[in-house]
């Protein structure tokens, strides 16, 4: 078996007025041993897709195969072999970490010793603490321990680090990387592009219920046109986008919404050492002075903005 997950033409429409087409035809192939990320803004259909894969929701149409089994024919066989962390599960406040993990262990025919699962997420010191006393990051690690205690072949994580501080996010990434290092498969959703770049071997970018791009993070970044980005701002009307595209090695140019009469630009470039002098020369002839300039490595965020024309976090209030 090479496919851990195989999805064809998956669609899900929630009844209502009007009906909500959460997923509109998704194909996915996740290989055994890889970490696959579903990326996209809130409401893109990531969670719905994941819940169908987890057997919590039935698809409206399409085929789903998990670990070579289907939900219709062998639901218990799949449940026994997958581990899940849902978005926002509130575990019982008054149980201890160890009691909670032991409870989840009891649902599986085979699995890890609860202490072992707790050690995997480095919560040993909190094993006797009540869940209510844990921090957000510790709770999320406990949720992952509950997912790991059945010793799953495939781990589903739905937005594992949303709302966590940077330190807690890093701790969780270590847990996922440790699990991956044992040759197991991970499928996660996130709307943090840095998280996807850190953890995922391959990603699919989902928007409005469809996969709009997929591949390794590096491939996707190359596909947008360049590994480097030059962001600059001019105080006043700046040069046209078409002019900027003529500069050496510039692949794409975006003109971002001007504020206070200033204009912001974002160029993806192949070779900054050639593009930058030409850009500066161009700007010197421009009547508006240069107000700021930075260069950076392109991220999946740039991929997303380029592909969809809108920001990844438009839909949400805040992001760390």
């Amino acid at each position, binding site marked *: 078996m090479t496919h851990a997950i195989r999805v064809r033409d998956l669609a899900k429409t929630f009844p209502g007025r009007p009906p909500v087409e959460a997923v509109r035809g998704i194909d996915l192939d996740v290989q055994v041993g890889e970490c696959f990320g579903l990326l996209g803004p809130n409401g893109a259909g990531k969670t719905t897709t994941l819940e169908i894969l*987890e*057997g*919590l929701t039935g698809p409206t149409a399409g085929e789903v195969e998990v670990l070579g089994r289907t939900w219709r024919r062998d639901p*218990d066989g799949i*449940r*026994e072999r*997958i581990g*899940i962390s*849902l978005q*926002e*599960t*509130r*575990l*019982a*406040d*008054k*149980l201890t970490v160890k*009691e909670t993990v*032991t*409870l*989840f*262990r*009891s*649902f*599986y*025919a*085979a699995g890890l010793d609860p202490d072992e699962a707790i050690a995997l997420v480095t919560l040993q010191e909190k094993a006797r603490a*009540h869940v209510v006393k844990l921090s957000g990051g510790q709770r999320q690690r406990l949720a992952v321990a*509950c997912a790991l205690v*059945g010793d799953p072949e495939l781990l589903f994580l739905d937005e594992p680090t949303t709302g966590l501080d940077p330190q807690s996010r890093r701790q969780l990434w270590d847990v996922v990387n440790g699990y991956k290092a044992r040759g197991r498969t991970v499928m996660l959703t996130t709307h943090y592009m840095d998280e996807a770049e850190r953890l995922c071997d391959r990603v699919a970018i989902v928007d409005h219920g469809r996969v709009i791009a997929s591949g390794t993070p590096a491939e996707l970044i190359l596909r947008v046109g360049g590994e480097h980005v030059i962001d600059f701002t001019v105080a006043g009307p700046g040069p046209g986008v078409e002019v900027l595209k003529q500069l050496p090695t510039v692949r794409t140019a975006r003109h971002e919404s001007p504020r206070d009469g200033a204009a912001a630009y974002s160029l993806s470039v192949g070779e900054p050492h050639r593009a930058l002098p030409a850009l500066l020369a161009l700007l010197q002839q421009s009547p508006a002075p240069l107000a700021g300039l930075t260069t950076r490595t392109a991220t999946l965020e740039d991929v997303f903005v380029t592909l969809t024309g809108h920001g990844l976090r438009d839909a949400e209030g805040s992001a760390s």
Partner: protein
Amino acid sequence: MTAKFSAITQLTLARLREFYREPAAVFWVYGFPLLLAVGLGVAFRDRPVESIPIDVVTDGPAGLAKAEGYAAQLGADPRLKLKLLDAAAARERLRTGKTGLVLTPTAAAPGWEFLIDPNRPDSVLAKSAADSTLLRAANPGLAAAPTAESDEVGGRYIDFLLPGLIGANLMGGGLFGVGFVIVDMRVRKLLKRFLATPMSRRDFLLSLMLSRLLFTVAEIAVLLAAAWALFGVSVRGNWLALSALVVLGGAAFAGVGLLIASRAKTIETVSGLMNLVMLPMYVTSGVFFPADRFPDSVQPVLQALPLTALNAGLRAVINEGAGWDALGYPAAVLTAWGVGCFLVALRVFRWQ
């Protein structure tokens, strides 16, 4: 391995731990019924009738002298507290409940007339007491029947109340212990999380029933022990029959709780539904006063309610000393409710 991590054991343990680590829950389940029993037992403790207020009208057709004469005769019974008043004042006192009886002397035989409030037991009692005292005064030779006083327990209000409280506790425990807990888990998405594991749904529901059963045994034991220690209330009937009735009652209300919780998505919804189910039964099912106080026309409905049947069975065993033979009707009603609700609940249950 399997024995160490049995799902039923772990789920039941989790319920027990969550409960005992929540002081408020412990109070509502154990403390509250106990306080209620003590409070009501003290407030309604039986006392001998000490005083019966009677007003004698002075401005009636037979005049003041006759009124004073009757008052003197009535004074033979020390319980009667007499007041001589004009008719208007006496009527006003009867209307406001300050006196139980207005006696107006008349010219015609037998020489007096009564004014009572037929809806008030004290008024009816005052009339009988005045009547017999005056008749005895008129016939001095009439011998008083010898009257002995029983002080046996079993007929006091607390004796009546205790089985009712046990029944109400079983109802509250079943509804909250199952209904509330399920909806809370649904709101927390814990039910959904459990569903994503190989956990068997049967184990989950069985563990809820099992944990209820364990709580119930402790609850009833505490109530019975306290009632025995404080008021000397004892179980006169068969203990095994009582236990069977308690288990059946607990299971029936757990079924009702499961049905109530089967689709509710919020704590508010389930609280409303539980009150809708519990409050009418608190009033009509003979917890604080007998269910047969209600008109005959509604009795078939009341008698078919699970709490009415349970209370009737509990009273028969605890107060009347009945055994298994008294369990037929309550058992039939409780089984019907329990099984019916459980089956419907399983069909309509929303796991996520």
